[in-house]
């Protein structure tokens, strides 16, 4: 390698390292602030590394606000969301991929067209709808409006259509009903896509914010993102506790990301390239 090439490479790595630092720094700051004592978090200048680590901040946090409950609520909502939406979406994908009927592609286009509609334009009516249904402060209100993700239906339909028709004919010969073929053959074959979609759904569900804010009144039913915002108005300037609460919120998704990094990145990239 020539000198010029080595210098070029070094500069590349320096720039990439710089942006990696900028990306990671807020997370580092969140973590070490969570371990500061409340007074040194509001001293000038700020400390880049706390002298003593105050792990008791986490127990102080749990005494100050029911974050255990918020966390539990979020987990429940994610699980219910996942269970219902995977059934609804794979059903829809199967209906569109397996059967032929007049107007099918028109209906499918109508489904896809809703992707252009910002959900923010829909919450006005949805807010009143769920109020009339008496759904405030329930688990199902937090996810039910979002279980039919049309983009995921589109991805699943593609995955299902990639399965050769011979498998269906063979299953028919073996006496399978359409539903058995769907549940026992099609879904297992499309498992990689199902898992990718499930993970993306988990992330979206866990991080959702505006809708929970609107349809939750009691603190008992708050999900974690709403609990975090509510805690801010209560905790005010206790930054270590705020950051400890933030860690509760981001940690599960970071763990999921580190485990399923490839699935997540592939899923998002696929959506990006296919449009």
């Amino acid at each position, binding site marked *: 390698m020539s000198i010029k090439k080595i210098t070029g*490479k070094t500069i*590349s*790595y320096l720039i*990439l390292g710089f*942006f*990696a630092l*900028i*990306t*990671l720094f*807020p*997370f580092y*700051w*969140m973590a070490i602030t969570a371990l500061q004592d409340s007074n040194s978090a509001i*001293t*000038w*200048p*700020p400390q880049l590394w706390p002298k003593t680590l105050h792990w008791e901040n986490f127990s102080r946090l749990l005494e100050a606000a029911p974050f255990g409950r918020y966390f539990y609520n979020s987990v429940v909502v994610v699980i219910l969301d996942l269970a219902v939406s995977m059934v*609804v979406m794979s*059903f*829809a994908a199967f*209906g569109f991929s397996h*059967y*032929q*009927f*007049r107007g099918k592609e028109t209906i499918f286009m109508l*489904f896809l067209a*809703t992707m*252009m509609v*910002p959900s*923010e*334009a*829909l*919450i*006005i*009516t*949805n*807010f009143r*709808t769920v109020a009339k249904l008496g759904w405030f402060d329930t688990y199902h209100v937090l996810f039910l*409006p979002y*279980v*039919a993700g049309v983009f995921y*239906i589109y991805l699943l339909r593609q995955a299902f259509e990639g399965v050769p028709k011979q498998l269906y004919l063979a299953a028919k010969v073996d006496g399978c009903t359409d539903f058995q073929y769907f549940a026992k053959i099609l879904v297992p074959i499309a498992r990689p896509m199902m898992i990718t979609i499930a993970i993306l759904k988990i992330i979206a569900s866990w991080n959702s*914010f*505006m809708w929970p804010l609107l349809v939750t009144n009691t603190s008992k039913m708050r999900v*974690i993102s709403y609990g*975090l*915002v509510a805690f*801010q108005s209560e905790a005010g300037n206790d930054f270590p506790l*705020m*950051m400890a609460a*933030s860690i509760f919120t*981001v940690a599960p*998704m*970071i763990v999921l*990301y580190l485990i399923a990094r490839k699935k997540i990145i592939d899923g*998002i*990239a696929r959506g*990006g*390239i296919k*449009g």
Partner: protein
Amino acid sequence: MKQEGLKKALPYLLPSFIILTIFTFYPLLNAFIQSFNRLPTPDQYDFSLKTYQWLFKDTTFMNAIQNTLWYSLITVPVSIGISLMIAALLTSIERLRVFFQTVYFLPYVTSAVAVAFTWGYLFNADYGLINLILGHLFGLAKIPWIKDPQYAMSAVMIFGVWRSLAFNVLILTTGMLSIDPQYYKAARVDGANNATSFFKITMPLLAPVVSYVFTIGLINAFKVFTEVYALIGSYARVYKANTMVFYIFDQLWVYKDYSLASAAAVVLLVIILVLTLFSRWLARKTDYNAS
């Protein structure tokens, strides 16, 4: 035969169809109807164009549109510019590429609210690290980033760029890596240097991908809400950091004026529709494979 297909498909399609009808098609239609209601709640209806007149006379809404426009016009190009550079560097290296990719994508999966609070602390006028660094390097006085109309929107934009890098870097890097290396080999034989290769090969072939991230970026920027709510707070309008979705939220949540909220939502919807159609057109125009 054809109708039999529908009969069999129906049980599978019905759940999603019901959900979409109740929570997407109906509210979409209703937003249009409600936006022409002179009275604030749907309990009484009086068809009128007045709501739109009020909307565009409302200085808070005009400020919200202005902020949203500035936010979109600044954060999207800045973020894509930085992302293009990062993506180009990422494709030029092999060692540590996966590591860097993993790092850059992290903000995408983490809650905007939680990260916004950390940024709020970094931006804090008295104890924030950003003011410390600015003071050290440039001798600047402490800037009240969050609680001052002059700076609040800038803080939101910086945070917005930081957050949007994740998606843009991923898509642009994936796009660049999918370009056939043969092109670069051929160019090198012809004596092209790296810069020439980038502008004559990468950029033209990447144009559809760039137009895609540009559109998605603009659409998301026009819908900016959580970033503002979590960073500036529920009184963003006081700090002149209102955005269009924030305005909808305020009308709905604080003033209970469903008609004004709907009219604002229709305006947002039209903007996003135009952006989407524009991007379709742009994608077709820039796609080398299609022409």
